[in-house]
């Protein structure tokens, strides 16, 4: 059933080493910009103050009895890092974020397993898509103070790496633990189940049949625990704003429009979530690129470049599926096919669980599998171009250049987005007291007051702001 193509089954070569070296270079750049970003005020300081109360066990246990959300291990995760940090929050929380990105890049490379020149040439584009994808921005620009979405991305890639390996008993155990950890961290952790099942359907046997069956039992147990035992429920329309058409709608607007029958709104969210991966639009449910073009006559924007990048990437992936259709229909999947197949499965499932409201970062699991699938598909396209007729090779060259340039721009834009976020976060810390007053938040207790003082000191004095970047093209990129 599984037949690996020569290019992906061949042993590690110079291209593999070059790819890992390049991955380290990418991490150097992203890591530098990530370490320029202090721990945030909004969504971080409050969570940290809350996580510090009581024991680790009490904190985690209490989270089993919340309304709408079931995320006990998210809080446990924050608490463990808090205990490790002592009073030096910056290096532990920001360092942890960099370590997570390092692990993600390493997992990406271990999954796509670059072998040969074509694969090595596809890796920079794939890493460009991994970091430059709009769904990825929310996993690096903010943290709470641990970016939960990033944790789930690691779980999903971890699941894929486990599934793609040779059958071993310990992989079943690892799969079991990974699901429990991911599902009890945040709701999108359930996608780990999708990765294991989709990979198994495509012939990946790293996890055994009984291991996959255990995943299904765990999934059923999760729903039983959530809805029948703990009565946690699910978020409704009143929870958050969400994009619809050309604008963002407040919860009150959503209830006014869809309160009677939310199904069309849910369907819109699911469809939008799929389209945003394949075409880079709509963004969080809002058709911003179309709006920019039609209403503002703005055609060349970072968002339209991203639309080009995603669309060309999708074309390359669909071309791959078309060329491999006979193998797929005969269920003869190689490693590359399995990656592309799981991409489709994760995208569909990720879109379905985004039904209550859609947001770019919620689709980040689908985004990282898009990057992996694109790398596989591009490698195949490049291999074919090497032996194609001159006109076909020229056509491939044009397509590849457009794709590569568009992802290079998106990749660079992601870094400027980080610098912009760093400036904004420090401004938030400068005005933190005014913000607390405005929000009617009272910092009570000497520990919380000391934590605020320390975090502000880290953001303002110990790790001061770098000069903001200037220039028309910088502003163009920051408009993303």
């Amino acid at each position, binding site marked *: 059933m599984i037949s690996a193509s020569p290019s992906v089954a061949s042993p590690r070569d*110079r*291209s593999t080493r*070059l790819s890992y070296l*390049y991955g380290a*270079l*990418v991490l*150097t*750049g*992203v890591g*530098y*910009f990530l370490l320029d970003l202090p721990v945030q005020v909004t969504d971080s300081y409050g969570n940290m103050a809350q996580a510090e109360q009581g024991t680790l066990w009490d904190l985690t246990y209490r989270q089993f009895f919340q309304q709408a959300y079931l995320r006990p291990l998210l809080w446990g995760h924050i608490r463990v890092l808090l205990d490790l940090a002592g009073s030096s929050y910056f290096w532990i929380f920001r360092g942890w974020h960099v370590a997570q990105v390092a692990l993600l890049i390493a997992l990406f490379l271990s999954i796509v397993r670059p072998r040969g*020149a*074509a694969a*090595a*040439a*596809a890796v*920079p*584009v794939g890493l*460009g898509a991994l970091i430059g994808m709009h769904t990825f921005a929310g996993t690096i620009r903010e943290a709470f103070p641990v970016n939960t979405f990033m944790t789930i991305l690691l779980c999903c890639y971890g699941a894929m790496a486990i599934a793609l390996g040779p059958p071993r008993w310990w992989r079943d155990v690892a799969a079991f633990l990974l699901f429990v950890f991911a599902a009890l961290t945040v709701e999108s952790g359930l996608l780990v189940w999708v990765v294991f099942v989709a990979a198994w359907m495509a012939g990946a046997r790293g996890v055994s049949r009984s291991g996959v069956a255990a995943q299904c039992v765990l999934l059923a147990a999760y729903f039983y625990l959530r809805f029948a035992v703990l009565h946690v429920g699910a978020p409704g329309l009143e929870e958050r704003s969400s994009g619809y058409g050309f604008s963002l709608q407040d919860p009150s607007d959503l209830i006014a429009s869809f309160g009677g029958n939310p199904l069309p709104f849910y369907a819109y969210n699911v469809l939008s979530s799929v389209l945003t991966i394949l075409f880079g639009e709509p963004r969080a449910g809002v058709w911003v690129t179309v709006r920019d073009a039609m209403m503002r006559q703005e055609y060349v924007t970072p968002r339209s470049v991203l639309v080009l990048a995603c669309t060309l990437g999708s074309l390359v992936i669909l071309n791959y599926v078309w060329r491999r259709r006979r193998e797929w229909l005969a269920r003869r999947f190689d490693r590359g096919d399995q990656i592309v197949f799981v991409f489709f499965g994760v995208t569909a499932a990720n879109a379905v669980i985004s039904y209550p409201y859609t947001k770019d970062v919620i689709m980040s699991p689908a985004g990282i599998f898009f990057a992996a699938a694109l790398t596989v598909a*591009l490698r195949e396209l*490049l*291999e074919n*171009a*090497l*032996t*194609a007729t001159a006109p076909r*090779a020229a056509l*491939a*060259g044009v397509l*590849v*250049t457009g*794709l*590569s*340039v568009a*992802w*290079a*721009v998106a*990749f*660079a834009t992601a*870094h400027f987005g980080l610098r912009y976020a760093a*400036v904004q976060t*420090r*401004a938030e*810390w*400068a*005005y933190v*007291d*005014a913000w607390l007053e405005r929000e009617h938040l009272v910092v009570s207790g000497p520990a919380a007051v000391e934590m605020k003082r320390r975090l502000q000191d880290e*953001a*303002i*004095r110990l790790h*001061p*702001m*770098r*000069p*903001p*970047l*200037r*220039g028309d093209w*910088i502003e163009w990129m920051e408009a993303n």
Partner: protein
Amino acid sequence: MPAAGGSGRTVVLWLAALPPVLATAGVVLFSLSELGGRTLFSGGEPANVAEAAGLGRGAEVLRMLRAGQDPHVVLPIHPEIISSTVTRASAVEAAVWSRKAQLVALLDREGALADPEQRQHVLCLARDVGVDEIVAYLTRTGSASCEEGRTLAAVRARSAR
């Protein structure tokens, strides 16, 4: 990048890899340059607390205040920050040109406007410059009258010396 096959078609591999590799190299060079003390594509750091206030950078103002800089001392300000006619001002004065009431509030919170005379001086300057938001903030605690244009003229005259 190792070449696959000997034909000119390997150029397609370079077309794929080169743009993101160049982007990555650019990012790494930028990082190294900044670590070396020079931030590319930036106007540099403000030289003092007055420049930081004129640029409206609350975080920098706070950092410099905590480092001991005096917000009332008149300091040289680069002409591009406020204008060519205002090149010497204190941080509390320069904050008016940032047009950010929250920055004035920050200075107030840090005790820079505790002296009623200083407060009145900044209020009159805000009226002369026409920053209603700052005027509204400073008049919350009461105000005396200002002679129109006099405070602004004094700051400009100081710069012209």
